[in-house]
């Protein structure tokens, strides 16, 4: 029989990304033979808005680029502006930025792990990881006053100090996660059905990762030791001796599949715990901001002339901001933002190649935390149109897991 190719558009509602996205898959039977990606449904024109506002307002916009990495964008923006305007940052403020950034990494990776479990049909594991995730949100709320959008960094420092009474609570959290860490790893990595669904699925070869400019855990799971914290040690990361993590650090051979991405993210949770612990020990006393008064800060920024780049390793990879300031203009003349998914977008093409439709949810989620997964799927067959909602697609994924479990047992 002649092979016929069908097209399946998925999306555009896909809230895990800055962009809500639409995939159009070409399938032959169950096999994916091609994919086209169209982002832009959540395009709010943030850079355009930012180029018409003063820099303090831009900070709030940067925080709202992504609600999951709501400190990563401000950290990159602030470094860019500080470089351009020549503002110094007190050491204590640098440590506080690192602590909040690492807390964010823990919450983001746990969030992702839960979502990945959900895509595979393990809702028990979703609820377990999200239950333990609340602990880090409590600490974030304790330190910053908010569960999401922490509003901690400001040009020249941070807004809030960490008081001595808060140290033991953060340490208690570290102990809590260390106690759970082995169990979490065991649940995810030693489960036969998780392994069956993620091993050799959505593979990204190291050469492809390098050529397509992949970043973050996506690149590291393919064996590339790339981590901005290690390669370009900004803030105090150089002092902390951060090393990029690949699956080899867990004693596994790197295959660049979805399983490896789970390994890398779980190990990074442990790494972030150690970073926070060291920061608490090494953090010097002192000022938390070099220009405490906002009007003075705005006046200095208005006078500033120059350009700068700020980078940060967000939970999902490299964030980079470029800012150009001109004297007498309150708004940045140029503000360019790059989010990690922007770089990882192209990695999806090789990952989807030759996969099954039932693997779409987990492969999609594997580069990036994904909450409600795919909105709906249209299967276009000749003239008749069959609409497949997200639920049905998830059902397909779950059925595949069930078949595997039954086959094993």
């Amino acid at each position: 029989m002649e092979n016929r190719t069908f097209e399946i558009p998925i999306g555009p509602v896909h809230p895990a990304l800055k962009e809500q996205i639409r995939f159009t898959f070409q399938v032959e039977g169950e096999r994916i033979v091609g994919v086209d990606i169209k982002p832009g449904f959540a395009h709010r024109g943030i850079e355009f808005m930012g180029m018409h506002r003063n820099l303090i307002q831009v900070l709030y916009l940067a925080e709202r680029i992504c609600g999951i990495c709501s400190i990563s964008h401000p950290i990159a923006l602030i470094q860019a502006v500080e470089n351009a305007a020549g503002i110094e940052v007190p050491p204590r403020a640098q440590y506080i930025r690192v602590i909040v950034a690492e807390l964010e990494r823990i919450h983001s990776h746990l969030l992702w792990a839960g979502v990945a479990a959900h895509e595979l049909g393990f809702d028990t594991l979703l609820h377990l990881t999200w239950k333990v995730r609340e602990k880090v949100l409590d600490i974030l709320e304790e330190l910053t006053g908010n569960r999401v959008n922490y509003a901690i960094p400001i040009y020249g420092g941070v807004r809030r100090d960490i008081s001595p009474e808060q140290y033991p609570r953060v340490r208690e959290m570290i102990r809590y996660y260390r106690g759970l860490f082995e169990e979490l790893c065991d649940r995810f990595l030693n489960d036969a059905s998780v392994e069956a669904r993620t091993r050799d699925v959505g593979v990204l070869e190291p050469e492809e990762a390098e050529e397509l400019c992949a970043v973050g855990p996506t690149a590291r799971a393919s064996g590339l030791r790339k981590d901005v914290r290690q390669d370009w040690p900004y803030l105090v990361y150089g002092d902390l001796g951060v090393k990029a993590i690949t699956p080899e650090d867990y004693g596994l051979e790197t295959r660049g599949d979805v399983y490896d991405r789970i390994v890398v993210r779980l190990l990074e949770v442990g790494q972030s715990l150690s970073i926070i612990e060291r920061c608490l020990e090494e953090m010097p006393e002192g000022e938390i901001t070099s220009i405490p008064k906002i009007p003075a800060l705005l006046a200095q920024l208005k006078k500033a002339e120059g350009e700068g780049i700020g980078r940060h390793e967000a939970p999902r990879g490299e964030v980079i901001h470029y800012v150009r300031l001109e004297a007498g203009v309150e708004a940045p003349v140029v503000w360019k933002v790059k989010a990690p998914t922007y770089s990882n977008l192209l990695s999806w093409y090789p990952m989807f190649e030759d996969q099954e439709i039932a693997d779409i949810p987990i492969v999609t989620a594997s580069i990036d935390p994904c909450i409600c997964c795919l909105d709906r799927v249209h299967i276009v067959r000749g003239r008749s149109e069959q609409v497949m909602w997200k639920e049905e697609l998830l059902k397909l994924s779950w059925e595949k897991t069930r078949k595997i479990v039954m086959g094993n047992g």
Partner: protein
Amino acid sequence: MRAKDVLAALEEALADRLRDSEIRTRTVGVRSPRTIEEVWGRIDREVLLKAVQTLKDLGPLHISIISGRDLGEEIELLYHFTVGFGTEDGEVLVTLRLSVPKSDLVVPSLCGILPGAQTTEREKIEFLGVKFEGIPDSRHLFLPEDMEVHPWRVDEPELQGLVKRKVKWEERDGE
């Protein structure tokens, strides 16, 4: 990899087509301070591909983003690369800027050398109206397919029509 090696390689390959080049360093860290280095330079579009090939020969090359700006008569593009991406404490940020006149907005595409540049090049097509010669896919990425205005250009009279002004709080008070 150090910034001076990168700059030397670029100078050797491009000679006088590389202008205003400089190395910017910054000291970071508290306990054991170290420097991170950036290379900045201006090139002509004719030598863009040669410059990128030179950088690629130095080690793993990564393109972060292309940023751009409308200067009135011409468009300035800034290519932000990292050379030695993935080498511990040895990454150099390289920013190459080039200007293209609005009358001839064509730049060679990097996709042949660095396929990962496609996303950011497609973004520049829709936001600044720049054409990339040899890009495999030039459709709109973030903006709707039927949107013809380029939001980062200053000469877009239709843009203001699309912008919904501020919410008029006074009028909404009575609701």
